[in-house]
């Protein structure tokens, strides 16, 4: 019994490094922050930037899109969130979110679909002008990365 138990612990200790080597290493994990100058992004334009290897949308929304996003009652939403929760106060024209569809990770196409937002060509998920899931197989709204505005034209993601 005791021999078996010690043996099992020994095997587990030997196997763990073999499993753990597949995890992201420290160079990948080192939480990078990236700063972006958003001044050149004009109204109605989206820029895709790269953060931690993931694509991130920075969308300068039009007043029409903001108005539409605010007008949607929460009861219609699969993953309810208000437009205020999706943006930072005072910077409502800026929508910053990780560009991978929450279904299986494709990058949705901007300004298409039925909700004036994003349409994912892979499996047909549709997001509205606040990046909230409206239709299709995706379960969640497009994910917001941690970010803050350093000034009106500089944003720091991470």
């Amino acid at each position, binding site marked *: 019994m005791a021999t078996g138990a010690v043996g099992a612990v020994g095997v587990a200790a030997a196997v763990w490094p073999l*499993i753990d080597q*597949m*995890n*992201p*290493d420290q160079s*990948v994990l080192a939480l990078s922050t990236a700063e972006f100058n958003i001044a050149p992004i004009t109204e109605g334009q989206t820029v*895709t930037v*790269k953060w*931690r*290897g*993931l*694509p991130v949308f920075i969308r300068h929304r039009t007043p029409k899109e903001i108005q539409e996003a605010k007008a949607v009652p929460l009861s219609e939403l*699969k993953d309810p969130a208000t437009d205020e929760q999706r943006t930072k106060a005072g910077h409502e024209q800026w929508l910053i979110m990780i560009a*991978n569809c*929450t*279904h*299986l*990770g*494709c*990058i*949705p*196409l901007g300004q298409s679909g039925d909700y004036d937002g994003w349409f994912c*060509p*892979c*499996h*047909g*998920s549709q997001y509205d002008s606040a990046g909230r899931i409206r*239709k*299709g*197989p*995706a*379960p969640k709204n497009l994910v917001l990365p941690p970010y803050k505005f350093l000034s009106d034209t500089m944003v720091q993601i991470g």
Partner: protein
Amino acid sequence: MAEHSTSYNPGTGVEKWLDERLPIIRFSKEHLMDFPTPKNLNYWWTFGAILTVMLAVQIVTGVVLAMHYAPNVALAFNSVEAIRRDVNGGRILQAVHSVGASMFFFAIYVHMFRGLYFGSYKAPREILWMLGCLIFLLLTATAFMGYVLPWGQMSFWGATVITNIFSAIPIVGDGIMQWLRGGFAVDNATLNRFFSLHYLLPFIIAAVVVLHTWALHVPGNNNPIGVEVKSSRDTVPFHPYYTMKDLYGVVLFLIPFAWFVFFAPDILGDASNYIMANSQVTPTHIVPEWYLRPFYAMLRAIDFNVLFIDSKLGGVIVMGGSLLVLFFLPWLDRSKVRSGTFRPMFKWFYWLFVLNFIGLTYLGAAPAEGIYVIIAKLCTLYYFLYFLVILPVLSRIETPRPLPASISESVLGAAH
């Protein structure tokens, strides 16, 4: 069967010496030459041999391709292009390997549908069937990882979508996804490990094939009438009768294979994969290779929440379930009659199932909108109904046609 058992008599002193230490010649003669095989096997039964040849072709071409391939995100795409352009004969070697994957899947689908029709999964061949399902799963994983290696757009986004499937698992899903990728996104770490595993898995498949053959040689082959072998009159030795028939089947199979390799090596692939991987742009239509589309269609057919299961997890459960259900088939179809030939109602549902599967293959590449979404849901529903409802119910209510008394009687007609 006793009369067919091996009559190996070592002729020379050396053979006798070897036979007493490692009876490998005796074993080979027993299992590769004298093995008693039902005499009524048709050409659907040659696909076992065809699959063995395909596994060998893929391993041999794969080993030589690996001599020229570079598993690094900066080099992989160009190294595959170099194989196709610069390496001596590389154009053909690479085409044989990539077309070979398609031919392999075509053969395994025929082999599985053969088993479904003739009831080859029923007692006493349950383990044989389940090992076959395991081979299919391993083959799917191997093919998927192999497709990632050229590092084109479809490679990258296919890897992204498939590893993302694991993130649907509650709580630990994201951790598992990052463990599989070795990062937050599919990147160099992912490509490296996929190359390592793509090289490893075919040898694991080969080991399971040995078990599969072992499990075949215990009860012996099923046959088109599904009546067990009753006497030595029902069988012929495997060699030369089936070695020759299988060889003929292999030659016929190699004709379309060669046509694809020589004249249309890219026709089964996707043009987007000749654009190098770009993590910032998704191709407009992400579609897997044709052989994975039926399961892909079922994955995305679930776009609605069921109780506490969200649509994403639901799709993953359905896709996983569509493969897992195959393992339980021997206990779902309780009909005593094996062969579909003698089951008048089963036949209709079976051929509808085949059509349904072809339909799912088509839908897996169709745009995910409009009427296609509805048809995909119906097809997914029928796939599961067939296994979980139709087969269990049929085995209770169906009256099968009378079976021939023996294989000999079905071949030669009843004695007068």
